[in-house]
């Protein structure tokens, strides 16, 4: 038995636009065992950030349910939302705009402690802030510094410390390293892995960068236009992909070695509009294997081997062919 921390069932989020309904997240289900990391991968506009925000109730969902730690948290009052958020926190993409430029580092990290009344007095709070800064590797002397005095990597550490201030069980990380340089990125990724081990955290790691998720996730879902197209264990995804989009996505990553990329698939065209999508496979206009059924109905996510789910009508056929070439 795996101990599930978060489960999401048939989650939907439609935004109203002047041209119709924008299907940002469309019928997404998954669950995350405690202490593991789920990687959510996809390109711009696939709904990955919306998904993260829905789970934290930063957006109201259209349909579906969210079960956190055995409790249905789909419909909560404002007060209940506030209560539950101390267990679920978020690390944002942009360390420049996600922390208040007019607060000092100590104030930023201490703010959640004040809001939730976690500390009896100032001394206790200062102690807690100090230990948080130590945990994420920020020098004590920076406690009275302002964000503009710090570089991107350190700011992101402040964002992480703030997220950890209330001892959450679950953290949504929305592209936490995308704005950072490679050498700093590696430092932050290692820090996040250490923290997960030490504090038993559960992560959703949202990113467009497949090489980052491989490194940090236990399981990965690949999204395309609001739908999950493939879901499986992290290691398996990189050895066996069934969905044509996943194949193309993986082959499109430039490898840092000579002649690193072989048998590259170049997709035609661009992502289609998520507004009022038709009842057919979302990947239909760009797929190289397209057949008649693809234009008729949407493929369901099916389990094709143990723990490996794919939403494609023709995956058996495609993979029979693909292995040969």
């Amino acid at each position: 038995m795996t101990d599930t921390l978060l489960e999401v069932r048939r989650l939907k989020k439609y935004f109203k636009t002047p041209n119709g309904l924008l299907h940002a997240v469309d019928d997404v289900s998954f669950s995350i065992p405690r202490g593991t990391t789920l990687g959510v991968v996809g390109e711009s506009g696939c709904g990955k950030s919306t998904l993260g925000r829905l789970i934290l109730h930063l957006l109201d969902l259209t349909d579906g349910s969210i079960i956190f730690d055995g409790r249905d948290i789909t419909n909560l009052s404002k007060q209940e939302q506030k209560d539950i958020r101390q267990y679920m926190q978020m690390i944002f993409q942009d360390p420049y705009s996600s922390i208040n430029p007019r607060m000092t580092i100590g104030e930023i990290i201490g703010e959640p402690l004040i809001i939730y009344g976690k500390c009896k007095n100032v001394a206790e709070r200062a102690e807690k802030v100090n230990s948080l800064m130590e945990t994420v590797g920020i020098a004590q002397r920076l406690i009275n510094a302002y964000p503009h005095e710090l570089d991107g990597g350190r700011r992101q550490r402040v964002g992480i410390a703030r997220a950890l201030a209330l001892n959450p069980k679950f953290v949504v990380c929305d592209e936490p390293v995308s704005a950072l340089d490679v050498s700093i990125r590696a430092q932050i990724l290692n820090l996040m892995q250490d923290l997960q081990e030490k504090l038993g955290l559960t992560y959703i790691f949202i990113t467009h960068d497949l090489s980052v998720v491989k490194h940090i996730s236990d399981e990965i879902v690949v999204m395309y236009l609001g739908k999950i197209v493939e879901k499986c264990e992290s290691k398996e995804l990189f050895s066996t992909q069934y969905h044509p989009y996943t194949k193309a996505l993986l082959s499109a990553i430039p490898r840092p070695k000579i002649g690193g990329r072989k048998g590259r698939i170049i997709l035609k065209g661009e992502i289609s509009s998520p507004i009022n999508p038709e009842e057919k496979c979302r990947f239909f206009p760009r797929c190289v294997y397209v057949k008649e059924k693809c234009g008729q109905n949407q493929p369901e996510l099916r389990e094709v081997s143990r723990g490996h789910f794919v939403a494609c009508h023709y995956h058996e056929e495609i993979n029979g062919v693909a292995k040969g070439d």
Partner: protein
Amino acid sequence: MDEPILSVRNLTVHYIKEDSTVRAVNGLSFDLANKETLGLVGETGAGKTTTALSIMRLIPNPPGKIIEGEILFKGEDVLRYNKHRLLRMRGRDISMIFQDPMTSLNPVLKVGDQIAEVIHIHKKLSNKEANIEAMKMLEVVGISSDRFNDYPHQFSGGMKQRVVIAISLACNPKILIADEPTTALDVTIQAQVLEMMGALKKNFDTSMILISHDLGVIAEVCNRVGIMYAGNIVEIGNLEDIYVNGFHPYTKGLFGSIPDLDSDTERLKPIEGLMPDPAHLPPGCPFYPRCPERLPECKTKLPGAVELSPGHLIRCVHAKKN
């Protein structure tokens, strides 16, 4: 080898501010051979973009100032060009693609007119002829010429970058400088654009300088690679020199920091510490504070470039000629 088409010698660029001087580029030298693609790799603040802007003579002055050096284009020093000659150079001899396609196009002009403008100026064609040429360029970059009268907001990011590429290649420049041309794009779109750029470069016989922080993109497109750190090239060589026989501790550190898709690394090996502040560069080797292989002498002595094998130059005390 023939005479290089572009030769940068001892380039030094500072940004002079009231209370400090930012030493962005410090004595940088490299050659670009004809029809070659040179990649410049480095992190934020390494001086990549400043180098590119210096070649185009687009450094904002003040606060930027080219302190010394030479930039020889076909033997002529670009730094000595007058205003008139510079206008002829930009877009015709050397052109540039900027990082962000969203902001490098004029939002209130039709894309076709923006392409035709360059052709009209440099090729001295009538507006009508320039428009026909511009339509051809649109087709070359894979956009239907029906979209001549569309505005930039009607295009996606990848399409806008194609338009920018069409503008930069419209007058068949000798050198194309591409500053992070695909960084703002999704990977599948990036793959499309990179493939197209490779093909165009061949057809147009252009030499190219590709600036990127992504070692994967560089490996795919370039013949030669320069690794930049704190305003200088710390290691330069062909793909094999860098990707297989990388010597400089920073080069090795960079490769250790990227997750490898094809093997199972459990943990990354980041470079410790941070990039030095270019306003307060340490006196010796700028990489000294972060270097795992540092020696006491590195703190005060800035090593010169040593040629380890033909074309493979390194700035590090450990590099010694055999």
